[in-house]
């Protein structure tokens, strides 16, 4: 049955439903070839990372063959061009760790409270307006951050580092001290039953605590104020900038995690009379904890792998600061060492000097790989949890 009166000029020669064996075969082969091509391209793209691991490892292994592990991981003496050369990377590994920890200390409180604010406190329209800030922070190239650290921040720290630190300390410490004391005095007087007595005790206790704590805060502030910073290109500078660079990742990933917790849980908590802060801290945060952990891991990855900022603004001194937590001394990181030393080393491919940099690169790759795997694992666990599979 066909509409022959229909003026449709569409004529199809092969309008037969059943293909000949041959046509069928060609069609199948074509489909297979096409799909194989797509698979090939996709797997090349995906397995690029295996190539990377392989080629980095291939140039890293000769170093350990030549010099073993002892020196690399055990010594803090880094004299690659001395005679005889010494390749102790411990101080450099320590430097990487130090700035990464510093970056997380900056980024975690800031990023998490920003994420909570975005997901639970601000209305939707404001949130849309704020998103670009995070996006711009993420988009600024690392060399620009490095330039800022070197040209703007470092002189500032060197000139007025002490006062800046002191002011920061007061801004952070005074409000948290006040709130902490109010909370503590309330909690500690919980057992007193008479309302009048209790209120009296609470006030006395608060005053007492304040009298003890305030001098401590001021004392610390004074010490910070007097601090003389000999060089602005130090671990503190770099940690601060790396923390800012990790912020966008931490904010957006942990915000997603907080949003994923869902309405019901929040409403359940509000229904029990909890305030917003209590809801977020006691209910939402634990439920989103793995997502937040993943966010922090990604932040660690960003800080650990960053090159330009540390190369430009860390001072590049291969030493463990004294004392080891002294953030005001220059340090050196794995990434900066690779970037800085390759220029002298790559003429002599095959030397320990060249391969030691690949050993560092491999170490870096390994650390980032572990962070990545951990964060994926943590996220997938949370998803399973939300689906009720665990």
């Amino acid at each position, binding site marked *: *049955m*066909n*509409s022959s*009166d*229909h*003026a*449709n*000029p*569409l004529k*199809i020669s*092969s*309008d*037969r*439903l*059943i*293909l*000949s*064996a041959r*046509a*069928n075969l060609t*069609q199948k082969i074509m489909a297979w070839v096409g799909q194989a091509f797509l698979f090939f391209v996709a797997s090349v793209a995906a397995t690029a990372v295996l190539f990377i691991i392989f080629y980095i490892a291939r140039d890293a292994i000769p170093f350990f063959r030549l010099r073993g592990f002892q020196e690399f991981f055990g010594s803090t003496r880094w004299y690659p061009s001395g005679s005889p050369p010494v390749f102790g990377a411990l101080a450099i590994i320590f430097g990487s760790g130090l700035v990464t920890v510093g970056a997380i200390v900056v980024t975690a409180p800031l990023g998490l409270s920003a994420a909570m604010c975005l997901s639970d406190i601000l209305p939707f329209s404001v949130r849309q307006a704020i998103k670009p800030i995070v996006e711009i922070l993420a988009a600024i190239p690392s060399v620009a951050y490095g330039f800022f650290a070197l040209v703007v921040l470092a002189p500032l720290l060197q000139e007025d580092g002490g006062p800046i630190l002191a002011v920061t300390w007061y801004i952070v410490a005074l409000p948290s001290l006040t709130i902490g004391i109010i909370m503590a005095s309330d909690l500690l007087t919980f057992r007193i039953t008479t309302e009048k007595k209790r209120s009296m005790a609470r006030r006395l206790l608060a005053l007492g605590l304040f009298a003890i704590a305030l001098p401590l805060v001021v004392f610390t502030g004074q010490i910070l104020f007097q601090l003389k910073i000999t060089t602005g290109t130090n671990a503190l500078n770099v940690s601060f900038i790396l923390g800012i660079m990790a912020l966008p990742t931490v904010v957006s990933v942990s915000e997603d995690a907080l949003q994923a917790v869902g309405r019901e849980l929040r409403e359940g908590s509000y229904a029990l009379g909890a305030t917003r802060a209590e809801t977020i801290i006691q209910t939402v945060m634990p439920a989103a904890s793995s997502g937040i952990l993943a966010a922090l891991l990604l932040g660690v990855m960003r800080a650990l792998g960053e090159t330009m900022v540390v190369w430009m603004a860390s001072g590049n001194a291969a030493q463990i600061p004294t004392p080891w937590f002294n953030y005001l001394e220059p340090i050196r990181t794995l990434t900066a060492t690779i970037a800085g030393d390759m220029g002298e080393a790559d003429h002599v491919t095959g030397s320990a000097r060249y391969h030691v940099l690949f050993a560092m690169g491999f170490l870096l790759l390994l650390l980032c790989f572990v962070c990545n795997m951990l964060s994926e694992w943590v996220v997938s666990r949370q998803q399973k949890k939300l689906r009720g599979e665990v």
Partner: protein
Amino acid sequence: MNATPTPLDFRPFGESTPRPGNPVKSIHVDPKGAQDSVYVRATDFSIFYGRAEAVCKVNIDIYAGLVTAIIGPSGCGKSTFLRSINRMNDLIPSCKTSGQLLFDGVDVYDRRLDVTVLRKKAGMVFQKPNPFPKSIFDNIAYGPRLHGVKSQAQLAEIVEQSLLQAALWDEVKDRLSANALGLSGGQQQRLCIARALAVNPDILLMDEPTSALDPNATSRIEELISELRGKYTIIIVTHNMQQAARVSDYTAFLYEGALIEYGETRQIFTNPTRKHTEDYITGRFG
């Protein structure tokens, strides 16, 4: 769904006399004597999603040139069955079939079958209007271009004919290059019908084509179906029983994947043989 008023009214909304173009009762096809006018024939045909059987052992003959309605409660397998006819179920990896489904005498699930040709012969209209985000012209010309029509003049001809058939030409002839998403819902659905007609199919598969439309647009689509009747074999899935009664010659009632009853629409709605069917069409469940 609304309770169906009985006795049933076979005429479209607001029409007191049957229209000449809508001769529902004038064609009579004898199911037994009309072997060569059977266009789709299912024999013990079952469809599974993984383990779950969505359609089980259906035996049905669908006649050429007539409008066949498939009714049944939500989730009974109407769409699944309809989509198996042009093998749209291939998209779902877990979907498997057993038994036989003949389309124009050819086994649809034959391994040598050319799905492209099958789908060209079986145009489909979906529940929600789904024009491409392209111009009206390009929407209609999409199918013909696909099947090798290149000349602009021929394409223009096809577009006009298809739009005329879908009763949309007068409304859109001045803005063929406008984006199709700018049309109203009813117009979009007629555009989709025109698009399906443009590849010159033998059969039109319509999956609840009016469920997303307002009553006015619905009645226009129903009129259109009546106009297309006789030129195309039409299978329409609906769970609006008045609609089935108004537009179809034959009606099949599916329930939980099984074909409960199949026969002339008039007979199904006035004198169902099965208790189940009666319960359904009188609105006792569903």
